[in-house]
């Protein structure tokens, strides 16, 4: 294997080394980190609206119904998916031992992605909402997303096609899987739904919503975890075979489970039962991945003390295990009758998207940015603080919403309690959620500041 460097990392590269420009990675990472901060403000506002419902309530474009889709789409596409794309531009060329196929195409993708996100802000605040969860963006922006995704896909596939090493590491499969599955899942949720109504449309919508997490954020998130855990700990992956079990079972099992979002609802019972059965099978890919990553760290856990990326990565793995244990359990009809539609669900969703996949992306960003820019991280101590704020704030957020949601579900099942009393009962839960949200936001601010200060700050700091 010949040595590989970022362009800024070395003044005089040794003979035959691969020098990566990383321009596309730079632009995606910088914009995603900025959106993480901006959309974080919206997150705090909507958490506050649960406690003070009249807050900013007389302006139509600042109501909860307008800000919530902006929060969800901004975090999913502005921050998380963009950060994942940026990290893929960093990781895949290194695993292939060649430069990214086209930095120009990558930069054009980054520009288009920013147009989409800014378009999303304008349209969602104006109430131009298609009415489908996760697919709120109007069709003209959807088309731009498809174009951007094809541009990203071509770049990655051409890089893989020109690779120097024949064997493909598990990260490459997961990234390729993500690109392919996302294409079809996104088309189902944003275009196939145009030709269906009622339950049929809802079924397509839930296939998309569920697989947006399961076949977009899961594979690209795991691709990042599989690369950065061995890298950051300088330890080889425990088992190649186990990573195969995880990948191929994910490819087969995940797509069947969309209907578990409609359990007990107006959808065929047999389809609900299929979704439940496959939801339980999800434990196979999850446990295969988690065992593999834990076993990789065997004897190396002490490294977590010194390494912020490893702290985020391994906490993310634990949250992945927990969130993917909750998922199958919610799919059981009896459990679902209590937790479905309650505040438990946002607790669960935030553990998946923030606790697991955002933690992976944050870790990758902390690892890659100093190397791409050839500088030391602006502040290790701030990085540590960002971890603890996100961790403690996140735990506070998840656990209070679970407790509150379970409690709410029990109250709903006692029909002698008027609905409004079940709302009033949750006030303390929402106050704790707001305070935990503030802590998480502080963590985001520290992370974003640290990354931007590293990238844009004083250039004379020593190279890593």
């Amino acid at each position, binding site marked *: 294997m010949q040595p590989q460097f970022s362009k800024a990392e070395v003044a005089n590269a040794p003979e035959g080394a691969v020098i990566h420009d990383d321009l596309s990675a730079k632009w995606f990472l910088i914009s995603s980190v900025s959106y993480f901060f901006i959309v974080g403000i919206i997150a705090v506002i909507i958490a506050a609206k649960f406690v003070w419902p009249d807050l900013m309530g007389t302006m139509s474009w600042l109501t909860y119904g307008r800000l919530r889709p902006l929060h969800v789409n901004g975090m999913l596409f502005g921050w998380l998916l963009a950060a994942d794309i940026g990290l893929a531009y960093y990781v895949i060329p290194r695993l292939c031992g060649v430069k990214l196929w086209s930095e120009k195409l990558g930069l054009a993708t980054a520009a288009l992605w920013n147009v989409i996100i800014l378009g999303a802000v304008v349209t969602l605040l104006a109430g131009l909402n*298609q*009415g489908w969860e996760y697919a709120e963006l109007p069709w003209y922006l959807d088309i731009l997303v498809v174009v951007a995704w094809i541009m990203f896909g071509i770049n990655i596939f051409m890089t893989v096609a020109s690779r120097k090493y024949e*064997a493909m590491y598990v990260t490459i499969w997961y990234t390729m899987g993500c690109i392919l599955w996302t294409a079809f899942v996104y088309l189902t949720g944003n275009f196939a739904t145009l030709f269906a*109504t009622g339950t049929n449309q809802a079924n397509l919508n839930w296939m998309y919503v569920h697989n947006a997490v399961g076949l977009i954020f899961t594979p690209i998130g795991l691709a990042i975890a599989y690369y950065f855990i061995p890298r950051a700990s300088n330890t080889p992956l425990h088992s190649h075979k186990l990573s195969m079990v995880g990948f191929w079972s994910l490819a087969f099992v995940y797509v069947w489970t*969309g209907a578990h979002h409609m359990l007990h609802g*107006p959808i065929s019972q047999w389809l609900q039962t299929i979704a439940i059965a496959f939801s339980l099978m999800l434990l196979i890919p999850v446990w295969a991945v988690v065992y593999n990553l834990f076993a990789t760290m065997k004897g190396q856990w002490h490294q977590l003390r010194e390494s912020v990326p490893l702290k985020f990565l391994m906490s993310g793995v634990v949250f992945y295990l927990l969130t993917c244990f909750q998922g199958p359990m919610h799919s059981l009809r009896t459990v679902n009758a209590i937790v479905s539609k309650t505040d438990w669900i946002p607790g669960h969703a935030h553990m998946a998207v923030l606790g697991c996949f955002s933690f992976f992306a944050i870790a990758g960003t902390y690892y890659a940015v100093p190397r791409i820019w050839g500088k030391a991280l602006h502040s290790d101590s701030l990085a540590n603080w960002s971890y603890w704020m996100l961790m403690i704030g996140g735990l506070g957020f998840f656990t209070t919403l679970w407790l509150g949601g379970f409690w709410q579900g029990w109250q709903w099942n006692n*029909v002698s309690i008027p609905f409004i009393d079940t709302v009033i009962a949750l006030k303390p839960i929402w106050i704790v959620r707001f305070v935990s949200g503030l802590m998480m936001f502080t963590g985001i601010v520290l992370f974003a500041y640290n990354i931007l200060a590293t990238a844009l700050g004083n250039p004379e700091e020593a190279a890593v």
Partner: protein
Amino acid sequence: MFKKADNNALWAIGLSLVLFFIGGLLTTVVPPLVDSSWSKPFENHDPAKGVTGKLVPLNEQQKKGRAIYVREGCWYCHTQQIRTLLADTKRYGWRGVDAPISTPDEFVYDDPHMFGTKRTGPDLARVGGKYDTQWHRTHFRNPRDLVKGSIMPPYPWIVNNPEEFNALVAYLQSLGRSKDWRPANDYEK
């Protein structure tokens, strides 16, 4: 079979798409072909077969109201489905009559569907006819004037726009009415 995908990118691509499409097609394309209630509008005139009624498409004004419901994101906090649970049929009943369970054939004309996922506020699948126009006017202007402890946002820009307000109320009054479930239809008052 899976080992070959280690070194062969095309093989990896093909295999991951085949595995994906088995479940993908069986759970999206096949169900509406098997279960006709997904596409056949509800209609029953025989009380022996259960609750009677007929699903009719929304009129122009109700459709306008529906667009406002979508625009304002009402569906983020209100579901529209009476599930197969006593907690739903009893809670969303009216004056001692249980709400009928929501069935796919009641939603055939819904586009976008408004089933929802979260109940920060109560379910609205059978809200049609429960509250009169004056109640809705006061409630939309400031929900807390009528329901102490509510956390629903106020919507003065809808109340102050008679066309929008009347359309939205017309839509809300249509919800769940395809099934004639309340005795003697006395719920308008």
